[in-house]
């Protein structure tokens, strides 16, 4: 079952998005945002509007009964709402929201984004909201100069690749009368991988050997010495061949290679069930193979990933599985 796609965004919705984008002028298109004058928006919250309505009612009552005490109540409420706007703005100013990382998930779990919050002055009552729903909102009562981590769950649980939408950073401080908000627009995406379905992996291991004698690509390992390479700064010193250094004053690094006993081929067509089940099974196999450091090859209809191991390989394969659009 492919990912549910909304039936074409309605005209109004697309218009709204366009207007929004124009207004926001890509000001929020970054991975770290510090709230300042340009990027803070302030309006009374829904409670604030109620409050204003009651203030107007009080005002009308005070005028009609020529009652100074009621009038002063009304004026007090007006002044309070303006003070609240100022306080709310000053509260949010200086808050820094920094994008740390995304956490992909396996369906039906939800992926998460991790943020770092920090503010030079104490900033009260901050919420991060994704797409305006309560379920995907996280609240922090106080952000201070000490960095604070916050992970925001995203409302995705179906397999797929999702671009991250604008995230609203908002605060209702003080008294919930005003809503002070800003956005952070990350240019990244999250994956929801297919759910994991347990299958026996033995059947697919070694399948490769029979099909091809192409050998395995060289794999960096630790078992057998392969060659000497020039030393690069990120390589560390533990593999430096000191013998060569003593002779030639040249830093060389010893390269070892694991020759795997077994290789695996995970083929879509070998799986059972419908597309989603097959993908789930493949997903499980990929994860298991990665855990055991078994090199594997992934074969999807119209797509082949060559044998490899490692985190990058695994993620590449999982991404392919998530975005797979074919059928059985």
């Amino acid at each position, binding site marked *: 079952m492919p990912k549910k796609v909304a039936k074409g965004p309605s005209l109004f919705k697309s218009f709204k998005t366009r207007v929004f984008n124009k207004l926001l002028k890509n000001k929020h298109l970054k991975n770290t945002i510090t709230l300042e004058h340009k990027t803070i928006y302030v309006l009374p919250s*829904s*409670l604030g509007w*109620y*409050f204003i*309505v*009651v*203030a107007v*009612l*009080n005002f*009308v*009552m*005070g*005028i*009609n*009964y*020529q*009652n*100074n*005490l*009621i*009038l*002063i*109540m*009304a*004026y*007090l*409420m*007006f*002044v*309070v709402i*303006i*003070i609240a706007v*100022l*306080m709310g*703005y*000053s509260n949010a*100013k200086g808050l820094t929201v920094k994008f740390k990382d995304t956490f992909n998930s396996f369906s039906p779990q939800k992926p998460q984004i991790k943020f770092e919050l920090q503010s*030079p*002055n104490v900033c*009260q*009552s901050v*919420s991060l909201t994704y797409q305006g729903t*309560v379920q995907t*909102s996280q*609240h922090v*009562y106080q952000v201070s100069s000490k960095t604070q981590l916050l992970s925001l769950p995203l409302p995705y649980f179906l397999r797929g690749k999702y671009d991250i939408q604008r995230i609203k950073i908002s605060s*209702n*401080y*003080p*008294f*919930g*009368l005003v809503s002070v908000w800003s956005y952070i627009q990350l240019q990244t995406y999250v994956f929801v991988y297919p759910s994991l379905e347990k299958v026996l992996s033995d059947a697919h291991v070694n399948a490769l050997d029979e099909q091809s004698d192409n050998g395995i690509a060289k794999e960096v390992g630790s078992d057998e010495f392969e060659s000497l390479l020039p030393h690069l700064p990120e390589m560390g010193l533990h593999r430096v061949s000191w013998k060569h250094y003593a002779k030639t004053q040249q830093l060389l690094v010893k390269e070892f290679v694991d020759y795997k006993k077994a290789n695996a081929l995970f083929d879509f067509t070998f799986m059972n069930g419908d597309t989603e089940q097959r993908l789930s099974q493949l997903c499980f196999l990929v994860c298991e193979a990665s855990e055991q450091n078994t090199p594997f090859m992934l074969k999807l209809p119209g797509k082949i990933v060559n044998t490899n191991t490692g985190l990058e390989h695994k993620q590449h394969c999982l991404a392919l599985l998530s975005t797979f659009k074919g059928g059985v």
Partner: protein
Amino acid sequence: MHEIKNEKVINYSMCFIYACLVIFFIAHLPVVFISVLAVICAWNFYLTYNNKPKPNSILANILAGAALVLMLFSVGMSDTVILLVAMLMLSSLFKLLQAKTKKHYHVITTLTFFSLSSVYLFNQSILTTLTVSGLYILNFAVLGLLESKHNLKIASKQSGKLLLLALPLAIFLLLFLPKMPAFWQLPGPKLAKTGLSEQVDPFDIAKLSNSDELVFRATFNNSAPNAPYYWRAIVHDEFNGNAWLTSDFLKYNNLKSNSKNDIDEQFIASYSVIAEPASQKWLYGLFYSRSESQNVESNTLGLLRKKNYQAKSLQYDVTSTGLTSTPLNDFENKRYTYLAHKKNVKAASLAKDLKQNTQTDRQFYNHLLQYFVDNKFTYTLTPTPMSGDNTIDQFLFDNKRGFCGHYASAAAYIFRSAGIPARLASGYLGGELNLDNSTLSVRQYDAHAWVEVYIHSEGWVVFDATAVVAPERLNGSLSQNEALNTEFKSNLDFGLVSLSNFPGINWLRLELENLDYQWSSWVLGFDKQKQNDFLKSLFGSRNIWLVPLIVLLTIGICFIAYFVYLNLPKRATKLAPMVKEFYEIQKWAQKQNIKTPKHLTPSQQLQVYMEQSPQSAQSLSAFSQLFNQVRYGKKSFTNERKTQAKDLIKLIKTSK
């Protein structure tokens, strides 16, 4: 959106606020309905206290429907303001009973802001204002609690601070924003109590004057005229056998606005009156009163009326002249001598006797006064109730005890029997002068009734038999009347007035009275006229156009200043001990052109200073020692060490 942390405290606070509101409205809402509100409030408190779940919405809605029906039955539709308040209270309390989410509580708290203001429709005393202000702060604190996880104390402190900050600006707005006229006429709340009524029927009354509620205050512009003060409010011209009423003719006459403009009338006094809120239209004035104030109309009888019903206190200026002396025409003569029921035979014969023994109406007047003295009539506040159709006879010849209404009824009857035009007037007599003798407070127990007699060549004059029966009653208030004091006080509900024998308490009472007067005169009575005068006194009438500009500027500056204050960089955290002192020495060294490399520790820097400036080396080394002791030796920076450091710095600076 996050869940509420302080639900329990919030519920307690709202219960408390509504309990206070219920107490406020006890006097204005029917008992049944008030008890329903109290029960809901208590129920909610009980649920909160015992951590029980709130009732489900079906049950609550059924109950709300039942309560609504009960409300419509008990409160009725006649008084829309009361109905509004009742509905507001009922809906808020039921909402509170069902409130679960933050949004529910938001609705309740905002509604509460309106409910709290509506208290002021009924009562605007200082005490009420203080209480309501407290509740206001609490309500704000609840708003704060909904948003944060502070405790109630911190939240109320914050809300108090915010409101204190906002209050000066609100007062400024009240003072300077032009007062608008009412958008439309709203019905005022109908307040029940008054000592007067359109019908004077004293004979079935057994107990009187037990309310010390304020009716109005009068401030004389110059000096107060001589007592007694007869504050006229109503004139009754028709006797129906038991009671004196205001005839429809007079009512019509009352409505006619005053076109009379006799300047040659004898001027008596000019003064301003602040009348407390009352649902009746009548106002109070001495003798023949006229008023130019808005909302007040004067009529041909010299009485004042409100132009429209208003729930708030009303301030107006009065000029009083002597009662009219224009001759009565035949019709008026007939009307003021007409008695429909002549069942009081003895009284009529007494009138006949007196008439035969006197030549003029004036003589008759004096003889009648003398009659009340000679026949040992006494004044009482607890008369014997009388019934039948000859109550005046019973009073005049059997009981001989009574209060003003008895004397006035009887005297007016006698005058009319003798063919002398007479009418009954009711209002208030006297009043209590405040400490500086300029303001008179008149209370419900000062209610009085007397007779106005038309005497040829003199015009209308006051005939008050009470004056001879209880002469003390004429001067000052009942509360200051020695002879009747005990009786008066035993009649009075417990209050400060009943304790006025103790000088301290009496002084306190009068002080409070004064405060209350200032309150109603300056705060409650600050109307368009006063605002105009105030603004004119500030800017002069020519620069009055500056006002809106100044208002805008001031408000703007205030907000900008506050905004700047909010965004000021926070001051660095407190310095560690001795650091400030060390900086001082560094500064000194800079002045002395002693240069040190930047990476040196303070002790090393001091060492350099010592080498460079040998004349202060000794003090510097002492300072260095002290510095090391305090900063690294874990010695506390006591006052002694502080002074030592200061002295050393002084020595270092002065050494040459």
